[in-house]
């Protein structure tokens, strides 16, 4: 009797789960990101070498770290989708892609802005910068491939393969770029040394990393919800949901 429900259960379950999680992610994100950023930008002591310009670290480092982990998360979602044939996994993957791409862009942009006073140039072909740039290309490839298909189910699978090919390639890229960098440039760049960071500088950084993580999670959930609704707009449960919402609004 419930067999006809079975097909809708998955997307619907995913929808209600991410619907329930969104406010939590968003709330924790605000709780961490706002004090973390204020603390970092206003109240931590200035760096003895870099002065105030080091404060961009509170945006740059979380963005750079999470741009990579978002890509890995995407690849995991793609693998789940391909192995178990979950439609929702592909939807989650594609929900993450633009978020990760923007994170990558933020990391590159803040990196450039930081590089200007530190290294005297907007762009240096440093190993980390280069691999971050290639990461941006990978994100763009996945998004472009997804949008090239009219049939979004097909698009999800194709983009999933692309994400997997990319994730196999990431260590190779990282390694090769490092090699290339040392070969071509030598260690002329003063790299920012992290180990001896003062605790009052470290805390806001950790808060921002966690906050940014929540930020990405919240955005992903919201995008996933939209994606599910858009893809399933002709299904009964979506029309029922929308109908309920309208009723509620009228009641208010």
């Amino acid at each position, binding site marked *: 009797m419930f067999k*006809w429900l*079975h*097909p809708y259960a998955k997307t619907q379950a995913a929808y209600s789960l991410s619907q329930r999680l969104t406010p939590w992610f968003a709330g924790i994100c605000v709780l961490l990101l706002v004090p973390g950023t204020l603390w970092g930008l206003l109240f931590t002591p200035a760096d003895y070498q870099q002065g105030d310009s080091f404060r961009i670290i509170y945006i740059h480092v979380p963005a750079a770290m999470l741009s990579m982990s978002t890509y890995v998360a995407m690849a995991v979602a793609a693998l789940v989708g391909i192995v178990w044939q979950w439609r929702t996994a592909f939807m989650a993957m594609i929900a993450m892609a633009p978020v990760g791409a923007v994170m990558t862009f933020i990391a590159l942009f803040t990196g450039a802005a930081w590089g200007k006073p530190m290294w005297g140039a907007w762009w240096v072909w440093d190993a980390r910068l280069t691999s971050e740039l290639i990461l941006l290309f990978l994100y763009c490839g996945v998004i472009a491939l997804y949008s090239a298909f*009219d*049939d*979004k189910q097909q698009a999800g699978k194709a983009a999933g393969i692309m994400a997997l090919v990319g994730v196999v390639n990431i260590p190779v890229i990282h390694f090769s770029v490092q090699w290339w960098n040392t070969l071509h440039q030598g260690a002329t760049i003063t790299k920012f040394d992290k180990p001896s960071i003062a605790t009052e500088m470290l805390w806001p950084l950790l808060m921002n990393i966690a906050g940014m993580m929540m930020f990405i999670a919240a955005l992903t959930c919201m995008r996933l919800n939209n994606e599910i609704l858009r*893809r399933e*707009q*002709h299904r009964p449960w979506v029309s029922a949901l929308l109908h309920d919402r309208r009723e509620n609004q009228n009641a208010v």
Partner: protein
Amino acid sequence: MQNVSCSKRDRILFENLSLQISTGQLIHLRGPNGAGKTSLLRIIAGLSQAEQGQVLWNSRALDTTYFKELVYLGHKSGLTASLSALENLQYWAHLHQAPCSEALLYDLLTRLGLVGLEDLPVKFLSAGQQRRVALARLWLKPARLWILDEPFTALDTAGIALVEQHINQFIDGGGAVILTSHQPLTSSAKLQYFDLEYRL
């Protein structure tokens, strides 16, 4: 085949279809344009996956034994334009592990009214002649199930008669056929209809 559903571009074409084909059966799949006939045939052939439900052959999921017993002819002819009819069929026979001695192929092409055109690149043949070359596969491979999507397009009356006769022979010999066609079939009592509706 059980409870098959399919949607294209997130539009539902059909849901929970069930259909059984057994030996000696000819099923004529009918429906207006856009009803999902081709999608259904492609699902049965194993080219695309159903969103739900599954296609079974001898109560087993589709595997290589199924493909060995299947001939599928779609809208697209599957012929390489720059190769000759002979080369095309030879390649196809190699792929499908069907017998393909040259004498056999010449004989077959003669029977299909393609004398003297065997070595011409397929792109120089007319649409009807190309369709004949594509249909030659029905004579080549010893199969048990044929899935034919609009097999009579572009064929002349003689060609249609030839193919229909071959279909009837195949069915009498214990084969099963499922086909779509917008023209009525004139053939045997074993003919069954299966109608698809257009859904919004």
